[in-house]
């Protein structure tokens, strides 16, 4: 196996969302596929005490040469995969830069601060515009909506993995990721493969 040179080394990917959405699942699938391709991968996750409902992020550092730390330095993200809109903006605020590529699922999950009335959830249309302005390129993917059409919001994970692969931002192709998906979702593999391919199709539209 010859491991391809990266467009940038290390390549820094952030996956962000709300606890319970499936951050860890996505980072595992992508991370495992990259290790099989011969890369050093370090994944830093925020999880632990009742992170369900809290903001979560996974930092993936991909390198041909070194084991990097599990933290991307401020301002140094190359790709942001946002499973939730304001969480995507939270990450751009700290880790974004003029070259960052962003994939955003525009389905809000309201925090108790918002439902409780102590905080305001911004206008979604304006929010997506701001994300676009702060990114060199943005893909808006209605992953939750598409997943619900397929029968469960949980298929959003496989859809979003598909969008990352389909967008070509990582040195990974369908052939490498499919076996990892089969190992990750042994029970519902057909539906998840369908969702994965849907993700690839959506990003190419």
């Amino acid at each position, binding site marked *: 196996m010859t491991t391809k040179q990266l467009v940038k080394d290390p390549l820094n990917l952030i996956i962000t969302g709300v606890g319970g959405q499936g951050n860890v699942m996505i980072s595992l699938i992508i991370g495992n596929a990259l290790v099989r391709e011969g890369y050093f991968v370090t994944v*830093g996750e925020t*999880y632990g005490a009742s992170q*369900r409902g809290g903001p979560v992020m996974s930092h993936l550092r991909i390198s041909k040469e070194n084991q990097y730390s599990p933290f991307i330095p401020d301002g140094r993200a190359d790709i942001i995969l946002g499973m939730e809109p304001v969480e995507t903006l939270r990450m751009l605020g700290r880790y974004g830069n003029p070259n960052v590529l962003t994939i955003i699922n525009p389905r809000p999950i309201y925090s108790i601060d918002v439902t*409780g009335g102590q905080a305001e959830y911004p206008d979604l249309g304006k929010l997506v515009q701001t994300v676009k302005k702060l990114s060199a390129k943005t893909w808006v993917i209605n992953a939750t909506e598409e997943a619900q059409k397929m029968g469960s919001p949980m298929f959003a994970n496989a859809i979003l993995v598909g969008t990352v692969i389909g967008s070509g931002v990582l040195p990974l192709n369908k052939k490498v990721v499919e076996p990892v998906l089969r190992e990750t979702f042994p029970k519902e593999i057909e539906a998840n493969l369908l969702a994965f391919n849907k993700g690839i199709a959506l990003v190419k539209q």
Partner: protein
Amino acid sequence: MANIEIDAPGTTQLFIGNEAIARGALEAGIGFAAAYPGTPSSEIISSLAQVAKEMGIYAEWSVNEKVAMEAAAGASFAGIRALAAMKQNGINVVFDFLANLVMSGIGKGGLVLVSCDDPSAISSSNEQDTQPIAKWLDIPLVEPGDFQEAKDMTKWLFELSEEIGTLFMLRSVTRIAHARGNAKLDELPKREQRTYFDQIHDLKSVMPTTFMPIPSPLRHFFLHMKMDKTREKFEASRFNQYVGPEKVDLLIITCGSCWLYSQDAVKALKLEAKVGILKLGTLWPLPEKFVESHLNKSQKVLFVEEIDPFLERSIMELVASLPSTSPRPTFHGKRSGHINAYGELNPDLVIKAISNILGLTYQSRDAEYSGEAEAVAKSHVPERSMTFCAGCPHRATFWAIKNALKLDGRGGVVTGDIGCYSMALGPAGFFQVRTMHCMGGGAGVANGLGKLGQFGFNQPVLAVVGDSTFYHATIPALINGIYNQSDFILVILDNSATAMTGFQPHPGTGMTAMGKPTKVISMEALCRSLGARVEVCDPFNLKHTTNTLLDMMAEGGGAKVAVMRRQCELVRGKKEKPPYKVQVDTEKCIGEACGCDRLCTRVFLCPGLIWDKKAGKSKIDEVICTGCGVCTDICPQGAITKEAA
């Protein structure tokens, strides 16, 4: 979870640090592993338990960390390689045994203790460094700097432990334990393990067959000899290394995850030719000659380490003892204020420290972009406070507690404990809990409050505790309350799992770590046998739960027990579909016009209930709602409806 028993030497796997440690133990031919779950240490035993049967080893969730360590020592005494794993608080629980074990020495089986610290207390009640405990008790200490080392060091420690005859400690931190990275596998041993506890009364025997800390002064002397022997091994360890040119402007001395942060920082600043890094893997006893031989690299030293200044102090001690002709660099670190003396570190904090010492300026990104991105994030990103999951039984329990205390009217006090329910200190549990310290601590504190009647204290006292915490450390406090007639109600939140750390089984679940059915130790039978009044409630039945608590508070007369029984929603949700379809009847919900002041969304705070701003009415978020239906009982208008799904 990764497949740690894969028999594929030479291949590289993506492991979290805890899986790498478990794999290292398997490669060392471990026979016995025990722990009590605690973030960030839990996956060590869960991954070992998962493969235990196949690998011919034994793994258990012990009732608490003290028993886990003692059980592992028992295996070592009989010649089986054994491991115990715990978070920093667990080390406190097992401290007394450790202080005696170092004196008695171990058996023929190597014995390793893994201590996972949690800088910034991300999943902990406290921030605490366990490195000084190893130094204090004369336990040899190592710390892995990446995932490969986590595996390789664990394997190495079993050999060392047997050779030296003492317990070894591996300290890890959250960003190694819970981060993922590459680990190249070695062979798994293939051998059948048989054992017999030798009981020869031969005091001259090199290997003891009687394990005791006496005669203490002599044992203490032996222990120091073991530490000297360990130091020699550590001097030659491949886990200590220097990276950089012969002479540098700044020498970083670091260990653990900070080794990764330091490398990132030096690369980000492009200072590879000017800054060297001395990375230590063996921390105590300090490999003094190795350290001394690198102190002439620079006039300036920066210590990069998390929580306590462990290397900083140990190396300053060393330098103070060296001849005056030895190099005396200027030290920077926690003492000088260049590195935080609290909280976890990251590459940016190291970049800042290096820049500060060398007088450099560092820009992480385009300045104009930075200003705009920060401003937009600040003004447009709402807070996301921690809360109980949608459908969590704890929300219902604390709703009942809040209402019962209000109806009772005497200003009842709730003491808390360690678990998901610690969030009841905040809005998730309606600010009901007033104290939180250590496992079992809330019931202990309640014992004191419940005996203050003679000082005019008449407030009811409730101690909330999780089911796993009840078995871990609460039973002595309950016995004390019954024996000494202290007035409090022990409220056991029984969600049938050690939920916060990953749903591990406990003595009340009828299942072992290795998935074998076992006896259920019934908490209500146990408490009744002690003579306490015991009531069992379903917290989803708000009315019954509230009334039961009110009745118990009115009764007085010594410690009582209320069990709130309802399975963790995350466990239930994995096996079953939602029981109800919950909806808001938009005709009945009168929104702001209702006198309830948005009780459902503003106060009850279930993330499945949201506020439709346009309609001015409450709404169910169908992606989040788990269909528990509890909210249908709190709406004064009866506008929230449920029907069987």
